[in-house]
């Protein structure tokens, strides 16, 4: 393997010129700042602001796009500069459906076991070792990026709500609160059945089509002589790539076929992504309904809204009784959420932002 320092040193020589910086600053400054039509969520803003980072540790667990195999997403890799050698992502045995969701028929928990879900090996163990209840009462920052929900009694709160509830005690005041799902048990998600298929199947379908599209793009670049070396092409599955060779040729690709199939695979990715998003949303709502039931035990009647948040108004006394299982996967927010502005996170890719927003809604 190539030395990390060498890569770093070589790449750090790539710098933007002072002239370009000046030009960019001047051109950008000409852009009159535009006020957001939707003001940022108060309190929740902090959560939304870092949602893309924080949630990645949990909630996007289902969106695996691993090239060869799919593995558990619950690891807490944190070392810098080296990658665990021998890491091979050997996970392919999720169970056939621990949970059942049957669309209009409501929610039901299956008794099917999930033995196949243990293949994450060391990574899984590592994840379990994370202590979310640090002495400070806050979540281990290493598991959440730079945004730290604080633990209050048995729940995790965003900073705005924490500030309120920590001074709430003894008052009669009540505030609007929302609960969002910020984490996910990867095994549970992958085993979740939606419209007759597990989430794992939806993920695999997306991954397969995405990889094929990527492979074809590499073949295209290679065929055009645009810098993709043969050694990269050789990594592509032989049976797949040879079907694009011109008749009788050992190394000449049929570019028309390659290009039309790139489009085809991208379309398939879009379809598969859409199906996955539906399945993932169903999972979120299934889990939030379960939380809603647990909140009832604390005398809290929460409603599941269209944007996948549980909403209610509560006082400190009542909220302090809330006990939910796998509490680290849920964040209680001070609810001002008419104004969430998360699409701004996603930059230039509006279509992707729309898709992603479905996943991250409310965060």
């Amino acid at each position: 393997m190539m030395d990390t320092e060498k890569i770093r040193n070589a790449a750090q020589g790539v710098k933007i010129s002072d002239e370009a910086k000046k030009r960019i600053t001047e051109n950008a400054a000409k852009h009159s700042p535009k006020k957001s039509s939707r003001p940022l969520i108060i309190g929740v803003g902090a959560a939304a602001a870092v949602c893309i980072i924080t949630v990645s540790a949990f909630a996007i667990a289902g969106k695996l796009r691993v090239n060869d195999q799919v593995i558990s997403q619950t690891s807490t890799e944190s070392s810098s500069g080296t990658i665990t050698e021998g890491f091979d992502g050997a996970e392919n045995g999720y169970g056939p459906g621990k949970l059942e969701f049957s669309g209009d028929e409501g929610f039901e928990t299956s008794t099917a076991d999930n033995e196949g879900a243990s293949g994450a090996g060391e990574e899984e163990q590592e994840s379990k070792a994370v202590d979310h209840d640090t002495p400070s009462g806050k979540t281990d920052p290493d598991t959440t990026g730079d945004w730290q929900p604080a633990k209050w009694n048995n729940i995790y709160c965003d900073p705005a709500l924490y500030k309120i509830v920590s001074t709430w005690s003894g008052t009669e005041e009540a505030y609007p609160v929302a609960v969002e799902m910020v984490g996910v048990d990867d095994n549970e998600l992958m085993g979740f059945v939606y419209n007759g298929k597990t989430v794992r199947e939806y993920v695999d379908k997306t991954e397969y089509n995405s990889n094929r599209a990527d492979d074809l793009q590499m073949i295209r670049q290679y065929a055009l002589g645009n810098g993709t070396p043969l050694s990269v092409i050789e990594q592509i599955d032989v049976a797949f790539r040879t079907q694009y060779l011109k008749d009788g040729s050992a190394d000449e690709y049929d570019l028309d076929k390659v290009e039309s199939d790139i489009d085809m695979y991208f379309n398939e990715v879009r379809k598969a992504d859409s199906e996955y998003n539906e399945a993932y949303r169903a999972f979120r709502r299934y889990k939030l309904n379960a939380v809603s039931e647990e909140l009832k035990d604390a005398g809290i009647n929460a409603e599941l809204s269209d944007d996948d948040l549980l909403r209610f108004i509560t006082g400190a006394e009542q909220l302090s009784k809330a006990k939910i299982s796998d509490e680290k996967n849920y964040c209680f927010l001070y609810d001002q959420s008419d104004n969430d502005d998360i699409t701004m996170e996603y930059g230039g890719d509006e279509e992707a932002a729309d898709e992603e927003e479905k996943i991250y809604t409310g965060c």
Partner: protein
Amino acid sequence: MTADSVRTEKDIEQTVETYGNSLYRLCFFMLKNKSDSEDAVQDVIIKYIESSKQFDSEEHKKAWLLRVANNRCRDMLRFRIRHTSEELPDLADYTQNDEDSGILSALMKVPEKYRSVLILYYVEEYKVREIAGIMGKGESAIKMRLKKGRELLSDIYRKEYL
């Protein structure tokens, strides 16, 4: 935190000064072209100006900017699939010796999906989890890309530059 906060010129200037290199580096390794990379950085800064996003920390801000840059580059690459031919850029401006030049050239030949992860990990020194956040992928997908990307980089470098 307010929604209608406006970025001051000083803030914009500082942002370009502080993060310009990181943004440019990511864009350059993805787009392989100086002027496109500068355009992409400019788009990111405009996005920053237009956004009312408030940041908890400088690291948070950097991660957001990189994410927007990554998205912008992906958009540009998607457009390019149909519209241009890609050529390796002249790396002489950025390198001191043949070895660095070889490494960068090899890096440029690693497929894009691995290349951006390698840059964020090795050059920007982000953790796997943070890269997952920036790129909107799962942690294991990032680990897999790192592993494969490193192998490809080594392989290309060994075969073509040693």
